[in-house]
């Protein structure tokens, strides 16, 4: 169990820094179409922001609430990714062939662009949730005693 940090400097800096980190993560996620970046890196940065809030404010603080909620979302990212693939199949094409996404008024190239954005969101959600989940697993209670006695 991680308790909140005592130092007021760390807390104030965290309160200022975490939103900036999250905004940068979203920027990297959606800028991946135009430059370096993308779903994986954006997801890791988003997850790192949540890990920072857990490390600074502790497990049960109200500021870590999002990280706690996120914990129950294992598999949502996978569902988004595979769901986009399934929508392509419903549209009459191959699995993950974004040109078959059924959106009226869009040419195939723009549909592919949209499909790339959606799958990148899926990857980002999956990676962020996994990072937070591993940190919560690593900091769970009573691991040490059990592993030594058992």
């Amino acid at each position, binding site marked *: 169990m991680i308790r909140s940090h005592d130092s007021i400097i760390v807390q104030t800096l965290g309160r200022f820094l975490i939103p900036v980190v999250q905004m940068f993560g979203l920027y990297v996620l959606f800028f991946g*179409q*135009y430059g370096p970046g993308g779903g994986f*890196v954006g997801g890791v940065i988003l997850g790192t922001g949540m890990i920072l809030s857990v490390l600074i404010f502790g497990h049960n603080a109200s500021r870590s609430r999002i990280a706690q909620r996120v914990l129950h979302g*294992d598999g949502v990212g996978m569902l988004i990714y595979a769901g986009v693939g399934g929508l392509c199949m419903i549209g009459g094409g191959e699995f993950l062939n*974004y040109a078959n996404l059924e959106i009226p008024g869009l040419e195939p*190239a723009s549909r*592919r*662009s949209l499909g790339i954005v959606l799958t*990148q969101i899926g990857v980002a959600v999956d990676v962020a949730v996994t990072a937070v989940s591993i940190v919560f697993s*690593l900091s769970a209670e009573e691991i040490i005693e059990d592993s030594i006695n058992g």
Partner: protein
Amino acid sequence: MIFSFEIPLLLLLLATAAGAIMVKDLMSSILLLGTYGFTLALIWAWLGAVDVAFVEAVVGAGLATVLFLLTLFRTAPKDTRLRRPPPSLTTLIVFPLLGVLLLYAAEDLPEFGDPNSPASAHISPIYLKQSYQDSHTPNVVTSVLMDYRSLDTMIETVVIFSAGIACALLLRRET
């Protein structure tokens, strides 16, 4: 004249890698490993692979360090004291030979950036030419990863997902 950064960066890489193995304290070892990741990211950026450099900087120097530190804090103190046996004679003979063999094989690799090498002659030109017409995405790397090779990326996502599930199953006791 452009100063070549490759040699100092490679030396720094070797120094941090050796330091991460040699150092007695596990905490210093983890921080040196973070430095290693950051130097590697600089080398990727220098070679022009900016996307890989970005991932290496964020994951290798950032997330992996945090996870290693949390693991270190959660282990019992007696585990962190390090006893290192001296290398055996077989190790001393086999690994230098392996290194020489790899260097010998590396002589036959194509030049860096060679347009006639198999990697850049087979299918890369088609991607570079057609990716914008196909998917309206200026970044070719994203277009290849997420569109042409989308199934691979999906399976990678499955790998990350199963890593998280495995950690939760092994380490968590309460629901």
